[in-house]
């Protein structure tokens, strides 16, 4: 079990310190693995596209501003062809990166926040609280996000109305984000809890308790910094799942038509009959993008997990 490169883990100093040299070492170890390198490069490209889509392909085309004829195959003008309303597929796919990845990121933040909170509380406090929280997590472990989202998303959406907005984000997107977040924290909670259980028996936690630190302080200053590694690895893996789930939910018709994520694009391809018409250019760009992003996050996540998670089975 080598967890070198991350200060604090073995030293038991409740602080997450990492010198520049160590960070470089660590980056080198991720990039030194072929899977890690491929993943990081693909992610870099998509992140760039997601950050400034307008810079690469201009503003998002709508039915009004569509520049081509319906379902044009790829040509010099429309490198990836057009959809059934004449919108440029390259334009849509690049903007889709922004929407899909933003939803994925927000859902991941919620998932990790809930998962880490419950994992630390459950592991450190233990007893009856642990029992209750773990039974709840059992429920969410048994029922996959997509099954729960199927029933939760449309009902929540109908209650608040699809036109509602919070902080400038349309309700449809927000509901998907929240539903993914609320239903997928259980794995993270389990992983973190099991690490906390072993941390809590370590000497430095006893020392902190002896000098009179409160439980809250021990969790915040001594436990949390030592599970940061796990949180990072879990976040990356969760992001892959979140993008995957969003794509599926949008595909079955729970997405927002005005914010074409990749899943939403595939949904309109399906409902316009693109597969049967052989319009491969309508399907390939969003489909390949989803697969590349999910795959590269999985690769990076696994690489991180191998390096950071002392219990990883993949070594």
């Amino acid at each position, binding site marked *: 079990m080598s967890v070198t490169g991350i200060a604090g883990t073995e030293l038991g100093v409740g602080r997450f310190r990492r010198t520049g040299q160590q960070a470089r070492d660590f980056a080198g170890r991720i990039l030194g693995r072929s899977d890690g390198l491929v993943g990081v490069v693909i992610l870099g490209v998509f992140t760039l596209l997601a950050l400034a889509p307008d810079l690469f392909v201009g503003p998002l085309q709508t039915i009004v501003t569509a520049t081509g004829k319906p379902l044009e195959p790829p040509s010099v003008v429309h490198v990836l062809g057009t959809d059934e309303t004449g919108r440029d597929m390259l334009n849509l796919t690049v903007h889709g990166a922004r929407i899909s990845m933003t939803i994925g990121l927000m859902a991941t933040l919620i998932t990790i926040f809930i998962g880490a909170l419950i994992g630390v509380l459950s592991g450190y406090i233990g007893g009856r609280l642990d029992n209750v929280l773990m039974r709840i997590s059992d429920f969410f472990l048994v029922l996959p996000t997509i*099954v729960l989202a*199927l029933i939760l998303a449309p009902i929540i959406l*109908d209650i608040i109305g699809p036109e509602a907005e919070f902080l400038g984000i349309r309700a449809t997107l927000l509901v998907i984000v929240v539903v993914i977040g609320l239903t997928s924290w259980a794995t993270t909670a389990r992983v973190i809890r099991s690490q906390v259980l072993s941390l809590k028996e370590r000497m430095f936690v006893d020392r902190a308790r002896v000098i009179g630190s409160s439980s809250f302080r021990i969790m915040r200053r001594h436990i949390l910094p030592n599970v940061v590694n796990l949180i990072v690895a879990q976040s990356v893996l969760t992001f892959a799942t979140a993008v995957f789930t969003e794509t*599926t939910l949008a595909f079955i018709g729970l997405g927002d038509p005005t914010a074409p994520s990749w899943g939403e694009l595939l949904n309109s391809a*399906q409902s316009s009959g693109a597969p049967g018409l052989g*319009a491969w250019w309508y399907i390939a760009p969003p*489909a390949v993008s989803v*697969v590349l992003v999910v*795959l590269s996050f999985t690769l990076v996540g696994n690489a991180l997990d191998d390096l950071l998670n002392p219990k990883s089975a993949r070594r």
Partner: protein
Amino acid sequence: MSGRYLGRKLFQAVVTVAAIILLNFVLFRLMPGSPERALKNPHLTPEIIAGNRARWGLDKPLFPDQLVNYVEETLTGDLGYSIKYRGQPVTEVVLEAMGPTLLLIGLGEIIAIVFGLWLGARSGWKRGGTIDRIGNGLSLIFYSMPYFVIGMPLIIIFAAGLHWFPTSGMTSPSGNKDLFASLFDLGRHLVLPLTAVSLGLIGAYSILMRASIIETRAEDYVTTARAKGLADGRILRAHAFPNALLPMVTLIAINLGYVVAGAITAEIVFTWPGLGTLTVQALAARDYPLLQAIFLIVAVSVVLANLAADIIYGYLDPRVRA
């Protein structure tokens, strides 16, 4: 197997199913089309409203009367009436759609278990070898693809392009066929959806089996077998494979929830007349009774599959019965 282990697992399953029914009950009373809101109509006289409330049992308190009533009806299979299907009982509509889904998922699981476990075992046994590089690479790619993303190119190539298989549906409309002809027709329709479901599953199972066999390889009894001079293939078949299979039992059952959820998206692509296509129709029409019934069926089957896995696992591996 000790009764205590079995009892605990049974109890957990019952609690989970109870939570699912409770969730359905609560959601049904929150949503916009709920009976209480339908009665908020200024044209209705107080007498009519009171009469309807009494008829639907809304005059009784939510707890315990309405809840007890709801649980009773759910347990007897009365899940209300579909909105989209003109008042047909949803239980009938859902049961009708379950056959095609079971056919697709059942066959897909069998194919995927056979090929996925074989591929995973081969990959993990010769880690870094040719089979591992190609097999594990492909598995990771298929694992990253939603089932419908696997299905769409299949339609483009083999149905729209080559015309080998039909693009959608489960049967051809022409009637008057003998048994053999209709089975052949069903088979032709089944090939592409089944390929999509199997490919997606093979990726997942192969990755899990690979990890399991890599762990098993390091066990002492494998080293012993090697020291005895057994042939490599025999060590894999007789010693490593059966032991690596053990954790797969649970993983396959736990995966079932994802399989059902995933397979229904494959159905949509091929308009396969199962639960997936039904789900999309129910979503589009906001047919909540139908949607809730689908949720209940899928959720309960997942719980039952998990329970089955726990029992089989406890039977196979005496260590977990404690």
